[in-house]
């Protein structure tokens, strides 16, 4: 097994799916000759040609609208939007058509496309390059919303996303693109969409996170164990929509305590939905209010102040200790 970064693992997923299935196409700004601004599609144009790795004009709605047409025709387009902060240009194509064509045509057509976009902060970027607005897509019926947290699961989820018969919004935590390497098998590996995974076992408190918050949450869990003897059970959502709360609810029934972590804004964020599900499914097992460690409800600051905005392991440790103390 090779040790790959997330960028390399995603590249592997795209390459292997394109080798296996000539319906799989890539399109986006600078995805061909340049290999994508983060190099996720590096080298693919050399293998598959400009017919299948399409450098498009600079127009996000155009990219997604054309991908919808391709998908309806029977191809499996994977489009890259250079940063999630520019997906608003194409939002109406996703909401008005990708999400609805199956229903509108009463099953005649479906839109098996993937929209890839780097999201999230902590990389000292320009304005519009650090946001975490996955709830827009998770809130939209007809779409699936997937966010990996490491090289190995990003590869497995990407393969599943490409093969999924419905449109998948695939946000890649850009802070993790090259943050660490993992063993990624050359052989095919998939992960089911819509199923969270337990990434750490523990009996004292349930911690729910996803994407770039997973390494922080695991760091926090280590500190909590080492310094405070607290055993944290950590769940990685992997898919925000459809959200399956079964494992999380079960865990909270055991621990009686929960903390949700995301860099997305707090109000109406993924944490709000998870807390609501816990109220519905595990209210009588809760021993303390559920806590949220999140981005604040403000415009994402330019990077001189982003450290104070972004959740970190220390904030998570404090939140866990507070919920256990209350």
């Amino acid at each position, binding site marked *: 097994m090779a040790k790959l970064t997330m960028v390399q693992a995603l590249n592997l997923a795209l390459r292997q799916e394109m080798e296996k299935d000539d319906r799989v196409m890539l399109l986006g700004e600078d995805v061909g000759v340049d290999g994508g601004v983060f190099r996720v599609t590096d080298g693919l144009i050399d293998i598959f040609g400009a017919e299948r790795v399409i450098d498009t004009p600079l127009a996000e709605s155009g990219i997604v609208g054309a991908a919808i*047409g*391709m998908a309806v025709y029977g191809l499996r387009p994977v489009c890259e939007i250079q940063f999630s902060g520019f997906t608003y240009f194409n939002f109406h194509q996703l909401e008005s058509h990708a999400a609805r064509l199956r*229903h*509108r045509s009463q099953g*005649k057509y*479906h839109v098996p496309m993937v929209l890839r976009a780097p999201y999230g902060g902590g990389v000292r970027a320009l304005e519009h390059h650090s946001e975490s607005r996955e709830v827009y897509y998770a809130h939209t019926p007809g779409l699936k919303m997937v966010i990996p947290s490491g090289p190995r699961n990003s590869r497995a989820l990407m393969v599943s996303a490409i093969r999924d018969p419905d449109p998948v919004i695939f946000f890649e935590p850009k802070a993790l693109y090259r943050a660490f390497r993992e063993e990624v098998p050359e052989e095919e590996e998939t992960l089911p969409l819509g199923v969270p995974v337990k990434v750490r076992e523990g009996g004292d408190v349930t911690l729910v996170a996803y994407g770039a918050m997973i390494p922080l949450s695991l760091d926090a869990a280590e500190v909590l164990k080492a310094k405070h003897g607290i055993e944290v059970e950590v769940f990685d959502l992997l898919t925000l929509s459809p959200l399956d709360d079964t494992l999380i609810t079960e865990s909270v029934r055991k621990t009686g305590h929960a903390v949700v972590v995301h860099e997305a804004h707090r109000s109406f964020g993924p944490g709000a939905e998870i807390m609501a599900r816990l109220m519905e499914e595990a209210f009588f097992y809760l021993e303390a209010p559920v806590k949220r460690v999140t981005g604040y409800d403000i415009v994402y600051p330019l990077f001189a102040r982003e450290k104070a905005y972004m959740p970190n392991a220390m904030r998570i440790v404090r939140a866990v200790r507070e919920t256990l103390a209350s």
Partner: protein
Amino acid sequence: MPKKPLLFTHQLEYLSILDENGNVDQTLEPELPEDFLLKLYRYMLFGRRFDERMLNLQRQGRIGTFPPLTGQEASQLGAAAALKPSDWMAPAFREGLAEIWRGKSMENTILYYAGYDEGGAVEEDRNDLPLAIPVSSQTLHAVGIAMAMKYRQTPDVAMTFFGDGATSEGDFHEALNFAGVFQAPVIFVCQNNQWAISTPLSKQTRSETIAQKAIGYGFPGVQVDGNDILAVYSASAQAIERARSGEGPTLIECLTYRMGLHTTADDPTKYRNNEDVKVWESRDPIRRFQTYLLNKGVLAEEKTQQYEEEIKAEIQGGVERSEKLMNELGAPEDMFAHQYAELSPHLLRQREEMLEQWRLDQKEEKNG
């Protein structure tokens, strides 16, 4: 660094074959089989009568909001009739006649406007997208379909319809730009009916024509008399031929007029005067085509009467069948169908919840 003129040599064609009195320019007259001409005429007549009946059904509360197409029969049918069944069509929302020509059932059309999702179904052998309401958004789908056709090396083309208002939307420009860059086999058919609800063409654009916008994207545009079905058909057939032979996209601007309401929720007396409408009445697409066919000896007076009677009965049959279907449809859980390939456990639970709530609602309503 001198200033120097950059000369553009582009020019546009305007095409009209049949004038408003039904006189034909024989040098431009397309050679079409008589049965095809009669079929076109019969469909145009059907379109007009179906429109009238739908308006009627709406006023009686039997269907919901509906966008009438009267006046635009030639500009949509002339274009769609030039397609082959294996070609694709991406309509906006006023192309009901083009859709029926392509094989959409009257029942589905009525069901859709009566509020049944089932009416959106696309028949098995019809390669068309369902109607699209967000203005101009469908133009990009046609481009994507055409790009996929090119990749698959099929000899097919995609045709998309939109109005004059749509040319102000970003998606229209992105679609034309993509089509030009990728030389996609796509035909853009603008139904320039002069009005986007209350906004006249003069407030959509300072361009003298819509056709000229194609020049900026590197492919030809043509303006046609949209009330002249022979002109619309000829321009479309030529554009389709170009696209099929790998020469890329064309923009066709059909000059026509929305004789009726934007939708049944609209009141045009608020924003346009009747004089203009009268002028366009004299340019009616059906009357002039009828005159042409009568003069040509293809159509006889008795035949038009026969068509009228047949169409009346067909529409009555369609209305009756659709209303019968409405009584059979309507199970509330069907709203959960075709959301995803598979419903997640969460959605399955919501469907159960909806059914239980619906049952309780009905019980309460029954008990007052």
